[in-house]
């Protein structure tokens, strides 16, 4: 028991230490770009979403939603021994499919429309994950390479499809409003708002965050309680032994990429199934940053679905802090650098965990503790 406690402590501690290191690094950049305001700036970043009162917190949850989904996607694939760097593509493909369905299946009643659109987004994302999965399972093509190609094909393909279908708003270079298919708010806008005089300024947060959390719990359950989870993890830990056990390795790889793709696809749906005032898919030649940020989210959450909920919220929180940093006349580019630095430094937590293990071991040798976990011979 003691060991499990220590293990958990080491995990959470490493993530926290990584975050502190990230913040210190951010402080360095703040000092370089505008020393007078640096400490205040750091204060703003650290108070993140709280700067904006109730609305700010709501915004954090709103931005955390797709991050949690892509973090789940990347983390799940990690657990099965695959590096899903394809979340940006899967997210965009899922987003387009969801938006297209939302714009065209208008014969469905509103309460069903968003749900069906989201499911379609999920399937499209799954399909996009299946491609690298198939290449890996059948031809042993490295999934990283296939994923990167799928990212670009996905981005350009989605741009092409938007321009050539009825969801294009050619004046704004983006998709049309699909308010009828927006994810319902489920009362969250009544919880997260700020008052501007007599005017209620609600956050953009919607039911998506609840869906993401439920899915994270579901993934935790699948990984730890089910036969599939047992197979996936066995494949991730020791491919030879899982083959020996009769686990169909190809099927596990394919299925795992499909599930990862579906999670990212849902992320895309949750992001873009939004009211007229919300996000629209823009026709741009950029790979979705929400997709890529799934990687630091998963790393910081140590690939555990529950950990990913917290790390997704944290990264959205810090990003929101960066948004409020504009008050101090920092250039937007500098803010981007600072936030990116904090995020990526924090993602080194896995590395930090190893350092902690080494430190604990050294202390062990000084006979201050006696513990077996960190000392396992490989």
């Amino acid at each position: 028991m003691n060991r499990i406690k220590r293990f958990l402590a080491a995990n959470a501690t490493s993530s926290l230490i990584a975050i502190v290191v990230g913040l210190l690094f951010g402080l360095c950049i703040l000092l370089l770009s505008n020393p007078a305001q640096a400490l205040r700036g750091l204060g703003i970043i650290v108070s993140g979403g709280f700067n904006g009162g109730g609305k700010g917190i709501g915004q954090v949850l709103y931005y955390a939603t797709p991050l949690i989904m892509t973090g789940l996607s990347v983390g799940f694939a990690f657990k099965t021994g695959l590096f899903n760097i394809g979340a940006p593509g899967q997210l965009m493909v899922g987003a387009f499919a969801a938006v297209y369905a939302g714009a065209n299946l208008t014969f469905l009643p509103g309460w069903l429309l968003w749900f069906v659109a989201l499911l379609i987004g999920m399937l499209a994302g799954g399909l996009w994950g299946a491609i690298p999965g198939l290449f890996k399972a059948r031809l042993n093509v490295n999934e990283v390479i296939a994923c990167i190609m799928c990212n670009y094909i996905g981005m350009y393909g989605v741009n092409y499809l938007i321009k050539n279908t009825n969801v294009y708003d050619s004046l704004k270079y983006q998709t049309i409003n699909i308010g009828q298919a927006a994810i319902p708010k489920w009362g969250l806008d009544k919880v997260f708002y700020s008052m501007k005089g007599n005017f209620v300024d609600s956050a953009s947060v919607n039911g998506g965050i609840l869906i993401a959390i439920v899915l994270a719990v579901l993934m935790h359950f699948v990984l730890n309680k089910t036969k599939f989870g047992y197979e996936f993890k066995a494949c991730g830990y020791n491919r030879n032994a899982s083959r020996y056990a009769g686990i169909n390795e190809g099927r596990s790889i394919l299925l795992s990429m499909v599930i990862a793709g579906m999670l990212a696809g849902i992320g895309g749906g949750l992001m873009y199934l939004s009211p007229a005032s919300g996000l629209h898919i823009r026709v741009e030649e950029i790979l979705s940053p929400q997709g890529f940020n799934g990687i630091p989210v998963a790393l910081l959450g140590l690939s555990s679905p529950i950990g990913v909920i917290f790390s997704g919220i944290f990264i959205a929180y810090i990003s929101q802090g960066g948004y409020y940093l504009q008050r101090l006349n920092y250039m937007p580019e500098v803010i981007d650098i600072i936030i990116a630095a904090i995020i990526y430094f924090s993602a080194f937590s896995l590395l930090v965990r190893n350092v902690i293990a080494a430190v604990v071991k050294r202390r062990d040798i000084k006979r201050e503790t006696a513990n077996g976990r960190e000392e396992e011979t490989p």
Partner: protein
Amino acid sequence: MDYVIEMLHITKDFPGIRANDDVTLTLKRGEIHALLGENGAGKSTLMSVLFGMYAADKGVIKKNGQVISIHSPSGANSLGIGMVHQHFKLVHNFTVLENIVLGVETVSRGMLRMDEARAKVIELSKRYGMMVDPDAFISDITVGMQQRVEILKMLYRDNEILIFDEPTAVLTPQEITELMHIMKGLAAEGKSLLFITHKLNEIKEVADRCTVLRKGRCIGTVDVADTSKEAMSEMMVGRKVDFAVEKGPAKPGKAALLVQNLRVKGRNHSKPLVNNVSFTVRKGEIVCVAGVDGNGQSELVYALTGLMPIDGGRIFMGDSEITNASIRQRNDAGLSHIPEDRHKHGLVLEYMLAENLILKSYHKPAFQRHGLLRFDEMYKYADMLIEAFDIRSGQGSRTITASMSGGNQQKAIVAREINQRPEVLIAMQPTRGLDIGAIEYIHKQLIAARDDGKAVLLVSLELDEVMNVSDRILVMYEGEIVADVPAKETTVQELGLYMTGSRRSEVV
């Protein structure tokens, strides 16, 4: 008395278990000191303490009478202590020479200076009769050669105290003879050797003294020359051990495993690894495949179990053909497999012991319902096997498998495979790394399976095991079966002739 190393009152705790309990061990200069004990008795732990990998909770270590403190393997190296681990630690895509100098390279002006190192390695390998090719890649040389590299690594660092953790478990009998010779040479040069093994013959052959551990405690140190094998094994297990296995005559029934003209081609060899092999194993008999390592036994087993594709021939289990069946289908049809490499195939080391014990049956209704694992059933089943097979570990069914001792990991695999009540049990070196008590138990289990009407195919490199357990012996030489003889009608000498290819009988 002058001792090079004294380990006094060493105690080391792991979660849930005291691996060493007030152990004292002394090593004289120039002696070969054996360390004997059951699986999980704490031998590797004690040696890891000496080698600086674990810190003892209590006790002191002295070298030449001076108290020393060792914090890390490199610290141990600088004190002249070297170790060959139970599982080797070599870099596979480096050459022999690179592996030997790794960590102690001579560098001048930022460039590696290899010529001096090369000269020293060649000199050392000549002096101790350990020929190696310094430029061969580790991945291309045999396990026996890899071990020589490990030994040369210690000598290259001018180590005086050499620890060998079960060096013979992975070697062929021929290689063992060579190793014994090398060890004697080292001792004669004044080096002091600590030698862990489960084989009493080896202790008898090379060791001067022997320290016996049981459940972490030191039972005593004896002079090998004055102590019989029986006495040593009794010290170790705490009871008398039967060396010969009792078994009645076999009553073979119908064919359970039928192999016809099986062929497996090598990747880059023109000669097939398994060449036109045909044989039958009937219900109620133990058939043993003997042979020098590397004559196609591994490939034969991988082909039968579906881990390796075949290039021709047919395989039947009972009446049904399994030539093209998937691994899962074979498993579910009643094929069990104790694999040769326990870390590669046999276990998911990151999993708990209980999870490993259901590695092949997790999908059966006993352990899952509607896709949900039945953890209660899993733990219950694991506790049952742990009890029956005496699998020792710190935290029972919840122990992370990687932290278990090598022999107990092996016992876990054997327990899992035998307890599936298979129709056909393919056991490859099932007792590798086990203590004599455990070997006795496993042999009894194999015979019990046979008497229960199961077919057993045993692949072993150890002729003692082959002669003791089997009913019929097949000898493999260069991928072919060159002999098929009843165990009672043959001798070790005759098998030796078949194994080296100097004789072959007409088979099937």
